[in-house]
């Protein structure tokens, strides 16, 4: 009996020890504790598969060229479209064990880290690397919080794009080349597609429904009205917002009933397979069409969500310098590569997004990317809600809950509108 309890105690002690040991040694036993040196850099991302992985590998190659003395350590965490990585990151930051640099959506999503005092101001690096001259002013404004900038964007995506299958549209008597002028005109087209027996509009899980909602708000309120939703100058209880939400309700009525169980590629795949006519998704969807060897123009068409064509729904991945990074110099070297023309071109050619810099040569990119580069330069840049540019995480989660409740049939339009207002204004 005594021997058993001894063994039990030892086992428990062992468990405790391993629990304490985990996490503190992540592959740098050689210089445990870190020395702020540029000997290595741990890059924490959720880019672990598909075009994101090839993009990261392209960046790694440019980094090896520009900073051959710094060892690149890939700290990618797969799963859940980044949610697994964000959870682990939260734990590591809380425990005072930050990676040397981590991926985060640019904009308000960084607010929580900034409030917690977990990020260094990198505006000095913007001067050092000359980034102020090559990033557009709209972008710099979106990145600046209280006069400081906390991250370097690696790429730009557009959130307000409609993807459509021309064959399905033609079969329903809709001209795929004609782009509807506004949401009402689009709804007329959607009705024709629905009448032909196809799913008119495909969406997936709640976050893609939020993506759809934000594009409807952009289309109906205009850039100024849409931006006002986030800075307080547009009233969430106003009649304009009610009108946009009515449009959203109509659009949801055209969607597939299994939406809540799907992820975005499943919804876009419905357009590729000819099951659905339209899909609204950010422009990373173009990679899915390319993977299926589908030609732009004949196999699929894309256009900005009707009514929002003067706006560029902006989101960006960006890299940060956490407070207490073990290899701060290595992280700065990484940020230099991220901001450099060579790094941005290599990464975005592989990932399908466009450079944040305006001095890249558009002819190096694909046909879709060239149109995105043109709108990025000419249209009004507005922040995407669904991807952390417009509001902090708690607001986004609150809006997502309200949208899920509404589309699942748990609330009426008036309740939905008041819940949205409550989620944003707290």
């Amino acid at each position, binding site marked *: 009996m005594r021997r058993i309890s001894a063994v039990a105690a030892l086992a428990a002690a062992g468990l405790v020890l391993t629990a304490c040991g985990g996490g503190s040694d992540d592959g740098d036993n050689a210089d445990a504790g870190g020395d702020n040196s540029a000997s290595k850099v741990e890059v924490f991302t959720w880019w672990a598969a598909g075009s994101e992985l090839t993009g990261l590998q392209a960046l790694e190659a440019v980094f090896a060229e520009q900073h051959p003395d710094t060892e690149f350590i890939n700290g990618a965490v797969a799963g859940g479209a980044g949610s697994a990585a964000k959870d682990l990151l939260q734990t590591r930051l809380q425990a005072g064990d930050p990676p040397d640099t981590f991926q985060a959506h640019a904009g308000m999503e960084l607010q929580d880290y900034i*409030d917690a005092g977990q990020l260094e101001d990198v505006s000095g690096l913007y001067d050092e690397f000359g980034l102020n001259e090559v990033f557009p002013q709209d972008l710099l404004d979106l990145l600046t919080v209280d006069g400081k900038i906390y991250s370097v964007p690696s790429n730009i995506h557009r959130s307000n794009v409609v993807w459509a299958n021309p064959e399905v549209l033609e079969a329903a008597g809709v001209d795929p080349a004609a782009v509807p002028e506004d949401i009402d005109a689009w709804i007329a087209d959607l009705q024709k597609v629905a009448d032909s027996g196809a799913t008119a509009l495909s969406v997936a899980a709640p976050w893609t429904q939020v993506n759809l909602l934000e594009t409807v708000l952009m289309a109906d309120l205009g850039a100024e009205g849409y931006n006002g939703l986030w800075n307080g100058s547009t009233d969430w209880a106003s009649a304009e917002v009610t009108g946009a939400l009515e449009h959203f309700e109509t659009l949801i009525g055209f969607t597939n009933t299994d939406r809540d*169980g799907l992820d975005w590629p499943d919804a876009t795949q419905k357009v590729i397979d000819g099951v659905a006519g339209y899909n609204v998704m950010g422009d990373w969807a173009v990679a899915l069409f390319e993977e299926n060897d589908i030609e732009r123009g004949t196999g699929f068409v894309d256009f900005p969500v009707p009514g929002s064509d003067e706006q560029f729904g902006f989101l960006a991945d960006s890299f940060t310098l956490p407070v207490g990074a073990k290899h701060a110099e290595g992280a700065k070297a990484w940020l230099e590569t991220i901001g450099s023309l060579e790094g941005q071109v290599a990464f975005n050619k592989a990932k399908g997004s466009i450079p944040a810099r305006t001095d890249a040569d558009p002819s190096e990119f694909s046909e879709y990317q060239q149109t995105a580069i043109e709108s990025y330069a000419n249209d009004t840049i507005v922040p995407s809600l669904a991807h952390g540019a417009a509001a902090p995480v708690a607001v986004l*989660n609150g809006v997502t809950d309200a949208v*899920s409740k509404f589309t699942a049939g748990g609330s009426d339009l008036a309740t939905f509108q008041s819940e949205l207002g409550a989620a944003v204004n707290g």
Partner: protein
Amino acid sequence: MLAPSILLLGVFVYGFIAINFNTSFTDNHTSAQAAGGKPVSWVGFRNYLDLFADPDFQHSLRNLVVFTVVFLVGTMVIGFLWAWLLERPTKGEGVFRSIYLFPMAVSFIASGVVWRWLLNSNQGEHASGLNRLFQMVGLDFLQNPWWNNISWGVAAIALPAVWQLSGYVMALFLAGFRGVPDELREAGRMDGASEWQVYRHVVFPQLTPVALSALIIIGHMSLKSFDLIMAISKASNYQTKVPAVDMYIFKSNYDFANAAAVGGILLVIVAILVVPYLIYTSKEEGAR
């Protein structure tokens, strides 16, 4: 040598429970407070009162009750029936036992991935999964939106849980059946009891402790359910929210106080279920 393990348990279980409750009584709702940048103050039971007043949290609690009832009744009834069938000498009993017990070897996450597809909510032309199967065998009226029904949808997620744990309940009951001495049954038969009366008055009463254990084990598993729900649905889907999912979302929002409060509520609910059982068993042991 028992002392160190008690000490470790004291710190790493009860100490952390105390810390959790302490957090739940504060206004630690933002990242700045979580990181220690802003002061945190004591608010007593306010987080609990706010949660119970919130219709969305009430919806989560209601979902938890629906899920638990379906899960408990399903596993108990099916597990008991299987055990009763196998209790009589059957040819190939070992094979059946393995078949019934086997789903338990699969993790909730792995089975959830398959069941997500089986429980696809599309009906009619675009149906797949079980709805498609119903169409193919001509049972169209059985098609339904599964977990996408806002009131009772969460019961559909209890189906895979029942599928996985009925075999375990069967094993418990089978052990209970085998624990009834043959002499007792013989004595019953000698007194002229029919086979049904032997079960009704001799065997079933002796299964009560087993049934209680099964109830406690399945019940507390159900209250803690998180992985299966996350594997089939998504954290943000309103129709399948339960308190454990709310806790996860609060934590992602840096709202540590509310996350801790939901954790506290779950612990109390489990305690309400488990403590009477512990008292009952300790009384039984004392009586011996």
